């Protein structure tokens, strides 16, 4: 087994073509290529920081604003979940809880953990790779609540009885999901695989 880098080649991550060293664009598809993405961890940290900043107002500001005759109710992400529980919709409450709270928070912790461990050569690289796979797969699903808000707001526009409008938290939440997705994509998994090679060569 030999990596493209060890063979003096640069692999294109977009089309899989092997390019000769020194090339900056893939000869086949024109994508920018690097043997290993430079400063990938700096990008990871930066995007994660903005994601985290956006996640705070996403939780404190209202996600949904429901106006009924003479009454105006604002509910945050957590408020919405509590409402669902009170109505007995435990299954849906669980979906929203997982997608809007458990996954985002877990993702921040996982990305931070990965970005902390990789340069310090801590942990088994195989388990780090597994964790990264999970983070990449699961991150997009946090968008569920943003879509729910969009659908509710589009449907419930009975001016006389009830209107639902999106709150500012919906925007913050959507941005937070996007930023953390970019953060997770900024990892260069090839770096972690290089370490797998080192460890197996060492023992």
């Amino acid at each position, binding site marked *: 087994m030999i990596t*493209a880098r*060890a063979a003096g080649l640069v*692999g294109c991550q977009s089309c899989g073509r092997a390019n000769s060293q020194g090339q900056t664009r893939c000869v086949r598809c024109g994508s920018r290529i690097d043997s290993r993405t430079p400063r990938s961890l700096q990008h990871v940290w930066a995007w994660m920081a903005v994601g985290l900043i956006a996640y705070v107002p996403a939780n404190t500001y209202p996600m949904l604003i429901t106006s009924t005759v003479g009454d105006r109710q604002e509910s945050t992400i957590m408020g919405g979940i509590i409402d669902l529980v009170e109505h007995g919709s435990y299954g849906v409450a669980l979906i929203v809880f997982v997608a809007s709270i458990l996954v985002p928070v877990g993702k921040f912790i996982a990305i931070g953990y990965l970005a902390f461990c990789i340069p310090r050569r801590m942990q088994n690289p195989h388990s780090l790779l597994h964790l990264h796979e999970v983070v990449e797969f699961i991150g997009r699903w946090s968008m569920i609540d943003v879509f729910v808000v969009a659908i509710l707001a589009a449907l419930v526009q009975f001016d006389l009885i009830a209107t639902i409008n999106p709150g500012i938290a919906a925007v913050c939440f959507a*941005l937070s999901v996007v930023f953390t997705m970019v953060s997770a994509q900024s990892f260069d998994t090839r770096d972690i*695989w290089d370490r797998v090679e080192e460890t197996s060569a060492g023992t």
Partner: protein
Amino acid sequence: MASLPVDLEDLIVCSKCDLLHRKATLSVAARAKCARCGTVLLVSRPRAIGQVLALALTAAVLMTVVVFTPFLQLQSGQFVSRASVFDTVMTFSEGIMLPLSFAVAVSIVVLPLTRLLALIYAFLPLFFGRSALPYAKVSFALAERLRPWAMAEIFMVGVAVALVKLSSLATLSVGPAFWSFAAIVLVVALKDTLMCRYSLWSLLDRAGA
């Protein structure tokens, strides 16, 4: 430095772990995976391009149904409201909510449709034996890169949650767009599994794109 065949076109580099593979040793398996990390490198399926194109065209046509016909209908007493995806997107078209409207439109309609059209643009001429159009490779690379950002399937789960949330408030029924959207999610998933990126790239190579 190891001695390798000079022809770089016969090599495949795994995008996840950088491991170098020879195409000849891979194409025996129906679905060849990276020897180290298991990423699918190629699927040997000679007729795949026709199937992939048919699926992409189907999904693109269904998308127009989705955008303009009612998605959900809500009835409470004598009040009826219908929402198409277009309405859903337009809900946030004012002021501070504009980025949200943009995000919804992009992730459920614009990106999925861009991916489909880019794929069709790159491969339809090849299917009919013509040479590739200009920028065919760029558009295929684009279709691939946009993949994580197209969120049609996540929107479907959002619809399900919204249905439950509203069930106590009003009677809900689903419109034609709902079914088209569900079909798109399935068709696109099937297309992405049938599609062999490597063979499509070499097809473009041979067509002189």
